């Protein structure tokens, strides 16, 4: 069929929107990351003066600097921030996988009307505000909160444990918030699995644990990959959870960026941080995209 005008419009409108509000902003971030801080409005130099034409452009290019990036590498604080984010992202993803797999597996094996209801129950918290869910944990984890109250009442501890402002609290918050993102892709791939495969494996002499390891896990691989990436990538750049539940002595990269931007008003460094974060996450993001495309369009 020939491409009609309406089809061109269907492609062009969202394309242009995304280009304008997703792609162009990144180029701007890239540009500002190469600029220098200035006591001005906007607080960076140089500003591209398109009215000056070619001369303006050349003046602009020569004024670019790598100062922001140099700072990133010279100050161990930033490097530490990246490493910590990656470590927390990997740790949280591993815990999510360990918790999410049994849950998704049990869900997929539940007989039908109950399975639908349970699925809704797992997804439902996702619809409530994520800020609220973190706040709920603040209620529980604070010094005179319920967890300490319960522990003291049971006589496990004598004095309240400072849960809040620790990495443990951040981990709890992350696992709690991202659990549905792990469970859903896992469930989707487990649910598609034919129970006859498990029966066939048993029939061919594989014990239950071997069947699980040799049949269930390999078939759930797309779900494992999708779920892990869906959790890992945003967790590395997470801001709210470490900010509310974590301590102030060691920051994750999202917090560092936030402080550079809002606190220190150092836009070039904040931009450089963002570019560097994106560079770190580029490989997992591309992996995730390819995985999604295969899942959605491969079946055709």
């Amino acid at each position: 069929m020939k491409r009609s005008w309406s089809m061109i419009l269907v492609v062009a409108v969202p394309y242009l929107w995304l280009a304008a509000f997703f792609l162009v902003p990144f180029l701007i971030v890239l540009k500002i990351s190469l600029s220098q801080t200035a006591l001005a409005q906007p607080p960076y130099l140089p500003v591209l003066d398109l009215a000056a034409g070619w001369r303006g452009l050349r003046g602009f290019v020569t004024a670019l600097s790598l100062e922001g990036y140099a700072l990133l590498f010279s100050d161990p604080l930033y490097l530490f921030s990246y490493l910590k984010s990656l470590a927390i992202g990997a740790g949280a993803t591993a815990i999510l996988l360990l918790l999410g797999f049994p849950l998704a597996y049990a869900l997929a094996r539940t007989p039908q009307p109950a399975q639908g209801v349970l699925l809704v129950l797992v997804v439902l918290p996702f619809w409530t505000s994520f800020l609220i869910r973190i706040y709920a944990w603040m209620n529980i984890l604070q010094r005179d909160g319920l967890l300490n109250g319960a522990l003291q009442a049971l006589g496990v501890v004598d004095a309240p444990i400072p849960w809040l402002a620790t990495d443990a609290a951040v981990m709890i918050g992350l696992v709690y918030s991202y659990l549905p993102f792990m469970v859903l892709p896992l469930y989707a791939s487990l649910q598609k699995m034919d129970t006859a495969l498990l029966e066939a494996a048993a029939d061919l002499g594989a014990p239950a644990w071997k069947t699980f390891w040799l049949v269930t896990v390999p078939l759930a691989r797309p779900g494992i990959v999708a779920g892990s990436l869906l959790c890992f990538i945003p967790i590395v750049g997470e801001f709210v959870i470490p900010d509310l539940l974590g301590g102030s002595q060691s920051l994750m990269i999202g917090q560092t960026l936030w402080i550079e931007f809002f606190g220190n008003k150092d836009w070039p460094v904040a931009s450089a941080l963002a570019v560097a974060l994106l560079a770190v996450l580029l490989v997992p993001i591309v992996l995730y995209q390819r995985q999604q495309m295969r899942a959605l369009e491969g079946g055709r």
Partner: protein
Amino acid sequence: MQGRLTRVNLAALAIGLAFLYLPIAILVIYSFNDSRLVGVWGGWSLRWYRDLLGNQAMLDAAWASLRVAVLSASIATVLGTLAALALVRAGRFAGRTAFVAMIYAPLVMPEVITGLSLLLLFVAINIDRGFWTVVIAHATLTLCFVTVVVQARLLDFDRSLEEAATDLGCPPWRVFMTITLPLIAPAVVAAWMLAFTLSLDDLVIASFTSGPGATTLPIRIYSEVRLGVKPEINAVCTIMIAVVASVLIVASLLSKLTVASRTQRSA
């Protein structure tokens, strides 16, 4: 895959659901706590809800959030549905790979990056930050979620239905309105609701892109929560949970009712 519920599976489900729901349940219960101290139970009371009614800043923020969510979700639904159509129906076109990348990247992109880049765009083109910049930012982010939801439905769609309509004399645009749109409507509605809640939920991107006079509810709550747990916030959160829950219940009832009325009419 289906089967029996073994004891292990049952335990996994019970623990998982308890983990998901207990914190929310505690928050709801403590919103009715009479005591100002969060760890102490002082008996049932509605005083924090009463206080809330007098908190004009909080009410303004809620109103701003609602307007942002409705507007951005509507824009995102239109654009996202178009994008889904482009992906499924337009075949190969120049720059399709870039298009796909721009659809899927925001789904996992850390919010601080998206927020920062949009803010820098608004600064670069000299737009004052406020209500509309938040709407645009939220529409951009949520349109990708809309696209994914609608795209999944379109991929399931039986193309011969559209061919049949064409064959029966229906011009292309009317095929879309009378056949395609009604059949993908459930996905479009679900996508709108997803976009709406995502917008209502967002703190980071809104913080970057909003300006004076456009404080959304999450921004308001966040600024209070940073200073510690407060009973009023428990009450606000409980109301938000109730709103979202009732929207979900109404939506599912509506879809059940339409199904029921269809069966009834034809019986």
